[in-house]
């Protein structure tokens, strides 16, 4: 029991120290964030080397950092978490095709635009006629939520608009006929819609909008430095060269920068991407096998992360759950009340809210946790409530005479609990604990929302990169199964060990 206390203490203290170590202010690195999951061509995992990041924004930031004599450090975050992370101070700036709309300008500070672009329409290759905004009326049209494209469609009216979080899901729905057309930003349209034979870009570019680098409103100094570097990069033609290599230099950009030169720059990155996709998205079983084999290291790493988070969370849940159960069963009235309230509150609120609350909410009180600690803590604190109820039932299942016999032998209450009651209670709760651990393993997928690269996040990323929800899904599902199996066996062993002396008959 002493060991449990020490462990709890360590768990309680360590997040603080980790949080301090994580404080970005101390580092000379230029921390920036984007959602690099299937975010082609902005920031994404190079399909040829899944562990490497690439993208035109990625290159641009590296260039900016070089001009500032700093090293850029990329931080992965979900689209929805990008701006909250900025105000939390997790990183200094965000690039993710963020449009400089009046609403956005009210919330964050922007640099000058680094890209000017327009909307494009994509349809299935056998479709015709849907090549203007007007023509989209009366059809089901997909787009990304909270974008200029979505606002244009809603303002015009007449179309059945479907808004997606991930563009890849929109493309899947276009392929399988749930959508008639897609309207979204030209770079995405180019990189997704024009490289597969079953879709095509139609009509002229529509409208125009600007992407800017977003900063926290308090961080004017950084904005000014970055903006100056960006100005230089535009002036000396570096941006032109970067964009040209990505096949993203357009008349709109020429117009914006006043740079009408036509240097002979090969679209190397564009070709590299198309080549990589052709290699991996081709048909034939050997292509598939090669792709799946290339996924293995990523899925393995992600599985380790899932395992680490789940196992630590379970340790926390078991320790804290036991204390809660003892408090509720044997504690003084105020202690019983507090433990009861804890259990009810934690069981009565969704785990997802708790995860977000701990990661994004607690910094308001000066508690900054790394994503890993926040994940362990939220899962552990959540499951502690369930374990507490489980143990309470276990404690109740131990006959009253056991405590009396221990007291009559002059043990203290604490000794009786530790040596007599708890070991017997554990025996009855092990099967339920096994269940809980399997379920915790699966619930750990929820911590993907706080930027932890575990199995579920890896599934979303890989499947949406290759439009392959089936094969990747089976691989990731297998990984979860394999993680769970040893615990089932471990639990059986524990049951046997604890079950010694219990033949199930004839004892009182």
């Amino acid at each position, binding site marked *: 029991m002493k060991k449990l206390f020490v462990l709890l203490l360590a768990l309680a203290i360590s997040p603080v120290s980790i949080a301090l170590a994580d404080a970005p202010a101390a580092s000379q690195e230029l921390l920036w964030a984007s959602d690099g999951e299937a975010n082609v061509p902005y920031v994404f995992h190079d399909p040829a080397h899944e562990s490497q990041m690439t993208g035109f924004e990625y290159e641009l930031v590296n260039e900016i950092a070089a001009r500032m004599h700093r090293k850029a450090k990329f931080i992965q975050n979900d689209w929805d978490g990008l701006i909250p992370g900025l105000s939390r101070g997790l990183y200094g700036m965000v690039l993710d095709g963020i449009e400089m709309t009046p609403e956005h300008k009210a919330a964050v500070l922007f640099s000058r635009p680094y890209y000017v672009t327009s909307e494009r329409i994509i349809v299935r290759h056998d479709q015709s006629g849907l090549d203007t905004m007007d023509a989209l009326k009366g059809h089901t049209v997909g787009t990304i939520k909270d974008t200029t494209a979505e606002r244009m469609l809603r303002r015009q009216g007449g179309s059945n608009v479907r808004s997606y979080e991930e563009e890849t899901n929109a493309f899947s729905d276009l392929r399988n006929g749930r959508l008639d057309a897609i309207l979204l930003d030209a770079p995405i349209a180019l990189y997704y819609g024009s490289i597969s034979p079953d879709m095509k870009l139609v009509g002229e570019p529509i409208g125009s909008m600007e992407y800017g680098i977003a900063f926290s409103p308090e961080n004017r100094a950084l904005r000014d430095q970055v903006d100056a570097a960006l100005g230089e990069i535009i002036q000396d033609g570096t941006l032109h060269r970067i964009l040209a290599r990505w096949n993203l230099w357009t008349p709109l950009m020429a117009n914006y920068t006043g740079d009408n030169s036509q240097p002979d720059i090969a679209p190397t990155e564009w070709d590299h991407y198309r080549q990589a996709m052709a290699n991996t998205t081709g048909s034939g079983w050997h292509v598939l096998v090669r792709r799946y084999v290339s996924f293995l290291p990523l899925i393995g790493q992600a599985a380790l992360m899932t395992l680490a988070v789940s196992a630590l969370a379970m340790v926390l849940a078991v320790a804290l759950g036991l204390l809660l159960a003892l408090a509720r069963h044997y504690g003084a009235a105020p202690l019983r009340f507090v433990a009861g309230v804890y259990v009810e509150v934690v069981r009565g609120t969704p785990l997802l809210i708790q995860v977000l609350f701990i990661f994004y909410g607690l910094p308001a009180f000066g508690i900054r946790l790394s994503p890993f600690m926040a994940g362990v803590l939220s899962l552990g604190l959540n499951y502690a409530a369930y374990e507490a109820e489980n143990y309470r039932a276990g404690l109740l299942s131990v006959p009253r005479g056991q405590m009396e016999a221990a007291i009559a032998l002059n043990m203290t209450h604490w000794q009786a609990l530790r*040596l007599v009651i708890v070991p017997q209670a554990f025996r009855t709760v092990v099967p339920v604990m096994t269940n809980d651990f399997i379920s915790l393993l699966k619930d750990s997928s929820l911590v993907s929302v706080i930027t932890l690269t575990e199995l579920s996040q890896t599934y979303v990323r890989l499947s949406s990169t290759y439009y392959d929800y089936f094969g990747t899904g089976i691989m990731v599902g297998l990984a979860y199964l394999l993680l769970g199996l040893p615990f089932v066996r471990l639990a059986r062993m524990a049951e046997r060990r604890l079950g010694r002396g*219990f033949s199930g008959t004839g004892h009182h």
Partner: protein
Amino acid sequence: MIVRLFFRGFPELADLVLQASGIAKSFGGNEVLKGLSLDVERGELISMIGPSGCGKSTFLRCLNFLEHPDAGSVRIEDVTVACTGKHWSRANEAEAHKLRSHVGMVFQAFNLFPHRTVLDNVMMAPIQVKKMSRDEAQSIACELLAKVGLAGVKDRYPDSLSGGQKQRAAIARALAMKPSVMLYDEPTSALDPELSEEVLSVMRALDDEGMTQLVVTHDMRFARAASDRVLFVEGGEIVESGDPDLMFANPQEGRTRRFLRTLL
């Protein structure tokens, strides 16, 4: 016996190992014990008999404070615990803890620890409570288990023992703490007659060694044959107390007579 009778005439000379006085207890308005008092001489074997629900078990459990009396005091050896009013204080518990070091208890349902072997059951309290070394505890435990005839099953788990073996193990477990007084709460009520005999013979052997024992029992043969003294308890008070042969042959009180007659 003669010596004891002699000392009873001169209480200041008797070696009273246990003195209980004015023990009262009620459960939710139901008065279970109405101020019982009892002096026990060292080496006595006392049987407490009486109808179910008469309070004899509760009285026994008050003697080591498994039950907290509402009033009264208990002295065992040099430790006295006095209860005043309903409140059971931390100081009371500390005193009771000291007092329990002189008392062993055996239960009707044995209450052996099912997750530990017989040997571990006997060794646990000496190691944990008395901080005895494992080796010392083990040698004491083995000796006691041999004494109660369980040397051959010391490494088994309680669940695999017969009822009589379980109760003998429970006695050994209590004896390992070297108590001055042993309390038995219906030790043979859950056992068949021949298994009861195994347990009762252990208790007789302890009596021969001079152990002080208080036994709540329904076994009238044992009460009559083995006890130094029999207490008849009814309605929360000690109705009659005396030499077993005299009491069984010629009860003084009408209530005692009626109770004994129902058993025949």
